[in-house]
C-alpha cells in the first residue's frame, strides 16, 4: 500500500470528510466543562415540538415533492410528538383523523394524499398515525374488511407483495403489509403464505437483507425483513448469526450507524439498524443460536425451520399459538398470529444490547440534533421530518436497550445527558409508542 498511489478513492474521500466534521464536534464537546457538556447533550424538546407542530399545521411549497407522501408526513410528525411524551389537542386530532380518512380508498388501503391510489407504504403510515392518536374515533375509521381485500390484492403468487396496483415488489412492501395486518389483527395464513421464502431469498452473503433477491444488504430492508419474519413466527429461518454480525459492524467510528458497508453514517439508521438490536434482544433461543450456527448454514434449504422464534409461542403464548405439529403451517390458523407482536413485547429481554447504545445517543444528540429543532442525517445536512422521526425512534431504542421489560423506566446510566432526555418506549416491531400499541391491541 505504501508504494501505491496516495490518491484517495471516492469512498475514502467522502468518509474522511464526514469523519473530520464529526470529530470536530466531539473534540469541541470534550473540551467543555461538565455542566456545559450536559447542556449540549440536552434534548431540545420545546424546539422539536415547535418544528413538528408547525409542519402539521402548514408546509411550504418545497414540500410539493412529498405530495404523494402526506400520510407519511402525518406519521413522522405524530410519532415524533408521541415519542416526546406529548399529544396533539383534540381539535388537531380530529383534523388528522378526517384528513387520513380522505386518503382511505373506498376499495381499501390508504393513499399518500386525497384522490391518489392506495399504496402499501402510505397504508402503513396512515394506520400507524391513527394508532398513535388512539381512541375510538381514530380506530373505528379504519375499514378492516376492505383493508384485508386490499392486502390480498397486493399479494403476488411468489408470496411477496406489490406496493400498489402494478407497483414494485420488494421487502418494504412485505413489511408494511404484514405489519398493518398484524396490528389490525387480520393476519392469517393466506396473507403469510410464502412471504418467508421471499424474505429468505433476500438475505445476502454479507448477512444483512436486501430490497430484492441479489441486491446489496441494506439497513432499511434488514429491519423490514427481520420484523416481518418475527411477525410471522419465522425468524429462525434466517441465518441469524451472520445477520447479527453484519448489523453489529454497521456502527462506525462516528458512533452512528451506516446503512451499508463502506457507506456514510446517517442518523435514520439509528432506528433501522438500532431497531434490529431491539428485535434481537427479545428473540428467545438466540443464546443457542451461536452453537447451532453451523447447523443453520447446513440446513438452510432443508426445511428445518422451527427455531428461535417458535419457542416464543411455545413458552409464553401457548394458548394463542399451538405448535405441536412440525408443519409450520399449523401455526397459522386464522386469527392466531395477531398476538405474536403482543407476546413478543411482553417477553423480557434476554440479552443486553449488542450495540453501543451510549455511543449512538452521542451521535444522535451531538451530530443529528439541530439546535433550532428537528434532526438531520449528519452534520452539514438540513433537518427534515423523516430524520426527526427515525432519530427519535433510535434514541428511544437506545434508552430502553438495557431494560428487561419493554416499559420499565431505564436506569439513569442508560440515558445519555440529563434524565429529562428520556423518551417514551416503542414497540420495535411496528415503531409505535408502546402505550398506544397496547390501546390498539385492546381495541381490535
Amino acid at each position, binding site marked *: *500500500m505504501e508504494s*501505491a498511489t496516495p490518491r484517495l*478513492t*471516492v*469512498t475514502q474521500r467522502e468518509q474522511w470528510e464526514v469523519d473530520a466534521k464529526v470529530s470536530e464536534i466531539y473534540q469541541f464537546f470534550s473540551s467543555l466543562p461538565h455542566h456545559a457538556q450536559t447542556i449540549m447533550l440536552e434534548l431540545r424538546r420545546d424546539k422539536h415540538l415547535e418544528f413538528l407542530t408547525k*409542519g*402539521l*399545521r402548514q*408546509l*411550504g*411549497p418545497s414540500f*410539493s*415533492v*412529498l*405530495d*404523494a407522501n*402526506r400520510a407519511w408526513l*402525518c406519521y413522522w410528525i405524530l410519532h415524533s410528538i408521541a415519542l416526546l411524551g406529548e399529544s396533539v389537542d383534540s381539535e*388537531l386530532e380530529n*383534523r*388528522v383523523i*378526517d*384528513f387520513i380518512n*380522505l386518503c382511505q380508498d373506498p376499495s381499501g388501503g390508504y*393513499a*399518500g394524499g*386525497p*384522490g*391518489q391510489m392506495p399504496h402499501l407504504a402510505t397504508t402503513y403510515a396512515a394506520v400507524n398515525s391513527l394508532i398513535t392518536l388512539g381512541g375510538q374515533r381514530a380506530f373505528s375509521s379504519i375499514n378492516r374488511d376492505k383493508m384485508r381485500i386490499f392486502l390480498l390484492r397486493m399479494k403476488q403468487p411468489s408470496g411477496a407483495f406489490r406496493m*400498489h396496483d*402494478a*407497483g*414494485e415488489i420488494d421487502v418494504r412492501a412485505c413489511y408494511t403489509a404484514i405489519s398493518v395486518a398484524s396490528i389490525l389483527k387480520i393476519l392469517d395464513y393466506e396473507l403469510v403464505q410464502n412471504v418467508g421464502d421471499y424474505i429468505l431469498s433476500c438475505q*445476502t*452473503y*454479507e448477512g444483512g437483507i436486501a*430490497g*430484492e433477491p*441479489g*441486491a*446489496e444488504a441494506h439497513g432499511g430492508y434488514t429491519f423490514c425483513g427481520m420484523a416481518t419474519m418475527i411477525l410471522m413466527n419465522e425468524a429462525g429461518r434466517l441465518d441469524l448469526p451472520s445477520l447479527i*454480525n*453484519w448489523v453489529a*459492524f454497521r456502527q*462506525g*467510528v462516528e458512533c452512528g450507524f451506516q446503512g*451499508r*458497508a*463502506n457507506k456514510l453514517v446517517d442518523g435514520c439508521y439509528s432506528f433501522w439498524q438500532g431497531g434490529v438490536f431491539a428485535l434481537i434482544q427479545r428473540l428467545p433461543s438466540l443464546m443457542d*443460536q*451461536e*452453537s447451532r*450456527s*453451523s447447523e443453520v*448454514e*447446513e440446513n438452510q434449504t432443508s426445511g428445518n425451520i422451527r427455531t428461535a422464534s417458535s419457542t416464543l409461542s411455545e413458552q409464553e403464548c401457548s394458548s394463542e399459538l399451538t405448535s405441536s405439529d412440525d408443519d409450520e403451517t399449523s401455526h397459522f390458523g386464522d386469527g392466531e398470529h395477531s398476538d405474536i407482536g403482543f407476546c413478543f413485547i411482553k417477553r423480557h429481554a434476554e440479552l*443486553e444490547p449488542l*450495540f*453501543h447504545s451510549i*455511543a449512538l445517543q452521542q451521535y444522535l444528540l451531538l451530530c443529528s440534533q439541530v439546535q433550532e429543532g428537528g434532526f438531520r442525517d449528519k452534520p452539514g445536512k438540513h433537518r427534515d421530518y423523516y430524520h426527526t422521526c427515525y432519530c427519535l425512534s433510535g434514541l428511544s431504542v437506545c434508552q430502553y436497550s438495557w431494560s428487561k421489560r419493554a416499559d420499565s423506566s431505564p436506569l439513569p446510566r442508560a440515558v445519555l445527558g440529563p434524565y429529562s432526555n428520556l423518551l417514551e418506549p416503542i414497540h420495535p416491531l411496528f415503531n409505535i409508542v408502546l402505550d398506544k400499541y397496547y390501546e390498539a391491541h385492546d381495541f381490535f
Partner: protein
Amino acid sequence: MDSDEDERIPFSQRPEWSDIKPVPQDDGPNPVVPIAYHEDFRETMDYFRAVYLADERTPRSLRLTSEAIAMNAGNYTVWHFRRLILETLNTDLHEEFDFIENIAKSNSKNYQIWHHRRWVAEKMGTEATNMELKFTRKILSLDAKNYHAWSHRQWVLQALGGWEDELDYCLQLLEEDIYNNSAWNQRYFVITRSPLLGGLPAMRESEVRYTIEVILLNPDNESPWRYLRGLYKGDAEALVGDPQVSCLCMKVLSVRGNTFALNLLLDLLCHGLQPNGELKSVVEGLTNSESDSIDPSLAIKVCSLLETLDPMRSNYWAWRKVTLPSHTKAI
C-alpha cells in the same frame, strides 16, 4: 422545467384544454400537513385529477402526465396512469426512455422512476438490453452506489441478458474504488448467477485468490472480507478446510491486530477449525503477555482481543464469548 417556468402557459389558457373542468383536491375543510402549492403545481394536478377520474387516455393526457411528473416525480398515481395511457395508445416506447432519463437527471433516487423504467424495458424486450446497461452505467458513473440503479441493472441481466462484460465492469469499478461495496455485491451476483460462468463452485478458486490479494493490500477494507466469507456461503466445511483462509488471517494478524481478520478467525473456530501452533502463537502475540486467565481456549482469546481492539462492539464480542459453541472451549 426551471428554464420553462416563465414561458409556461396555464392550462386554463390553452385552447386544447378548454373542454376540461379542473377538479380541485379534496383536502377537507381543515387539512393537516397542508402544502402551500405553487399555482402551477395546483393547476396541473387539478387538470390531472380531471383526466384521471374520467379515465381519459389520450395524447394530451400523456403530455399532462409529463408535466405533472416533472413537478413531482414521486407521485406514483401519475406514473401509473401514464402507463395505462401508453398501453392504450400503443405509443412508441423509444421516446419514453428519453423522458425517463430527463426526469432521472434531477432525481435518480426515486422508486417510481425505476419501476417505470423496468416496465418500459420489459415491454421492449431484448432490444432494450444494451440501452439499459448503458443507462445504468451512466447513472452509476455519477453515483457508483445508487441502490435503484444496481437493482435495475440486475433485473436487466436476469430478464434480458447481457452478462458478457459484467465481470469486467465490476473489476473496473473496483479498480476505481476498492471500497465500493455495491460493486463487490454485483461481483457476487455475477459469479453466482451468470449463466456463462458455471456458478460459485466453478468460480470459487479464482475468486478466493483475487480477494485474498485485495485484502493483503488493504486489510482494513471490510468489503472483501465479507465477500471472501460469502464465497463459502452454505459450505462451512469448505471454509474451514481451505488452508488459504486461515493462512490469510495469520498473515494479516502477524503484522498487527485486525478486527476483520479476528472476526473471520472466530468464525472458522466456531465452525470447527483446529488451530495449529503457529496460529495460536500469532494470536498469543497480540494479547497482553501476562494473560490472567488460566489457559483459555483460542476462541475465548480471540473474543477478548476483539473486546479491547474493537470497543464499539465490545458488547457484541462479550456476547459471542459467552455463546461460543462448546467444542471451541477445549481448543
